[in-house]
């Protein structure tokens, strides 16, 4: 059947069971938007305040649902506004298809109005990208994009489509949804040999990252932990894979990781690393990471093996399938002495409460209790993010959304909107700080337009807390540009957007505001005053080791 480009785009979206997209219209995508108008019963399009918000919404949608997020933007500034959202998805391996319009083929390369070479701009932050030059290539290019986004290690793919292609006509033949098969053992050392190393270990530890989520390997990790009696620690991206209260779960590793996790890894004789890239926030000093241990690394991405930390054994393959095979070779075991030692490593960081502020831990405790085990939490970036990672009662991997790799301030609001729309859950909790919130708070209009039940909890210390914390510890308390004297009235601004607004300075006020916000069933902002001097602890300075942990 003969269809025009815009019709083909919508058909391929439908082939891939896309029923939700985020975006913002403009000149070069008018044809596509006209087609979306005709198909609004099949695909719901959500317009955000800014394309960045749309890209984060597609990302949040993908992380919360496991489906591929789709974002659509016009040429030029529409496309460049996606860049931060695409890079965020790339660094955290989130499947996303970004479609951008471009000027007509005859205008390309002439610095035309709203023209930009977005394929060139996004080359380093996409798994792959395409410029569609011929209408005949359009359908298969889009299909490829969906396939690449989900294959092996997921990630974003961009397809740039000149305006004339969206109107040109070609033959369209329907094809089935793009799917991929999991790759089991691609390359690496003998699994029996690796199992032998694990079976002989006296002080083993499992350390896993976000890829465990993508590969649904959480249950197998749990099985191995219980079978062989091995403690585990994880990156921020893997929060919730294990229950927060599982005794073998030592919590976060790295810069703001638990003392127990960091000391356990440091003292271990075998580290089984699953789907983590040993980033500089985890292996702060790569040469000194688990110096006494035999390192085993399992990753779907061959280039991650030996990239940051040199390992002794490696397996390239999907975490779930590789662990499934490995689990059969691992013997039941007991490591009582080791756990006894680990218990001596445990150290709680003290905190004080009172005055005209609420302690961040109290906020996280109250939120965990209110949200229950199904609550979805989305963070921005900074101190509040670390407190959320440390103190929330994580129980499900897909319920904690955070920008771990790129560290994108302003990620949270859009992502929370995407997560709420994708899952239909009410409410979704957006935990933010006054710095991050100011970056994309304009998305309140999106939440109000569609009555998306996102509750934004803003930990307000009137400072860029994480920057200020570093300046306090490492820069002689010279608070350069980290104390903007903002006079934002959060209640008024929220109300101005048409959302509910609350401000609180005590636990009681916060609880009351939270109850009210949850009951209202729509978007709300809750400003919580916290102490400006509050720091994220424990902390290992960049490049440091367990010997450098700052406790108080």
């Amino acid at each position: 059947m003969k269809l025009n480009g815009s019709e083909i785009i919508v058909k391929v979206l439908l082939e891939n069971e896309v029923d939700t997209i985020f975006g913002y219209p403009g000149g070069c995508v008018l044809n596509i938007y006209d087609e979306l108008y005709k198909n609004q019963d099949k695909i719901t399009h959500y317009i955000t305040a800014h394309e960045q918000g749309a890209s984060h919404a597609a990302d949040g949608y993908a992380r919360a649902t496991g489906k591929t997020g789709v974002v659509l933007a016009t040429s030029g500034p529409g496309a460049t506004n996606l860049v931060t959202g695409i890079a965020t998805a790339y660094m955290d391996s989130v499947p996303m298809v970004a479609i951008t319009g471009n000027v007509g083929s005859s205008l390309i390369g002439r610095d035309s109005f709203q023209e930009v070479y977005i394929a060139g701009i996004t080359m380093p932050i996409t798994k792959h990208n395409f410029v569609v030059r011929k209408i005949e290539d359009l359908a298969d290019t889009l299909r490829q994009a969906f396939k690449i986004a989900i294959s092996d290690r997921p990630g974003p793919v961009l397809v740039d489509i000149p305006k004339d292609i969206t109107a040109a006509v070609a033959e369209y033949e329907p094809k089935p949804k793009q799917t991929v098969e999991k790759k089991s053992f691609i390359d690496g050392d003998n699994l029996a040999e690796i199992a032998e190393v694990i079976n002989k270990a006296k002080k083993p530890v499992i350390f896993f990252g976000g890829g465990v989520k993508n590969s649904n390997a959480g249950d197998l990790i749990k099985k191995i932990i219980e079978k062989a009696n091995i403690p585990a620690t994880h990156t921020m991206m893997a929060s919730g894979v294990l229950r927060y209260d599982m005794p073998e779960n030592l919590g976060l590793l790295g810069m703001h990781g638990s003392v127990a996790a960091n000391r356990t890894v440091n003292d271990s004789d075998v580290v089984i690393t699953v789907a983590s890239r040993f980033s500089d926030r985890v292996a702060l000093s790569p040469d000194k990471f688990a110096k006494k241990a035999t390192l085993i690394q399992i990753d779907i991405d061959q280039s991650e093996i030996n990239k940051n930390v040199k390992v002794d054994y490696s397996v390239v393959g999907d975490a779930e399938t590789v662990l499934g095979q490995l689990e059969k070779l691992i013997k039941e075991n007991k490591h009582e002495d080791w756990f006894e030692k680990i218990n001596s490593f445990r150290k709680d960081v003290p905190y004080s409460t009172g005055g005209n502020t609420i302690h961040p831990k109290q906020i996280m405790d109250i939120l965990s209790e209110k949200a229950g085990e199904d609550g979805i939490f989305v963070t921005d970036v900074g101190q509040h993010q670390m407190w959320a990672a440390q103190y929330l009662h994580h129980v499900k991997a897909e319920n904690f959304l955070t920008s771990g790799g790129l560290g994108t301030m302003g990620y949270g609001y859009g992502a929370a909107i995407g997560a709420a729309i994708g899952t239909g859950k009410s409410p979704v909790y957006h935990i933010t700080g006054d710095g991050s919130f100011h970056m994309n708070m304009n998305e309140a209009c999106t939440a109000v337009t569609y009555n998306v039940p996102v509750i934004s909890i803003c930990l307000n210390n009137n400072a860029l807390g994480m920057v200020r914390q570093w300046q306090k510890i490492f820069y002689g308390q010279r608070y350069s540009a980290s104390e903007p004297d903002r006079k934002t009235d959060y209640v008024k601004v929220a109300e101005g957007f048409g959302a509910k607004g609350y401000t609180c300075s005590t636990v009681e006020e916060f609880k009351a505001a939270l109850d009210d916000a949850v009951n209202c069933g729509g978007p709300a902002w809750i400003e919580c005053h916290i102490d400006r001097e509050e720091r994220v602890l424990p902390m290992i300075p960049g490049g440091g080791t367990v010997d450098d942990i700052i406790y108080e």
Partner: protein
Amino acid sequence: MKKTYLSVLVDNHEGVLTRLSSLFCQRGFNIDSLSVAATNDETLSRVTIATSGSEEEINQIINQTKKLYEYEGMFEIDPNDSLIRELLLVKVACDSKNRSGLLEISSIYKAKIIDVSVGSIVFELTGKPAKLDSYIQNLEGYTILEMCRTGATALQRGDVKMTK
């Protein structure tokens, strides 16, 4: 630091060279030289990259390159079992006083004269990059007016090493 030649087969698409060089730039890998052209299978291009780094860096380069969607195949060229060649064109100033010396050096290297103008000669030399380096070194006493090199290109001896 290890000097390595990589022979990479990629889809002959627009932008593939940009993608490859962007990857090298992004990750801080060296490109000492690079040559690229379509192969006998016109859907493929062969890129020969001369690069250098520690063994770990070379492994990273290889593994990152393999992730390119348009990647079709690659091998590290074994210098002992390969034919590595580069082309040099060099324009040297000369007059009646130094011409014979220049011709003598050039004939030792079997450099071909491809143009003679008033005051200059253009030589063409093909060979291993080291031979070209050595020839250029021996031209030190002369004035090189212009020069260009193609970068190395290479094939392994014997059986076909790599197809799509």
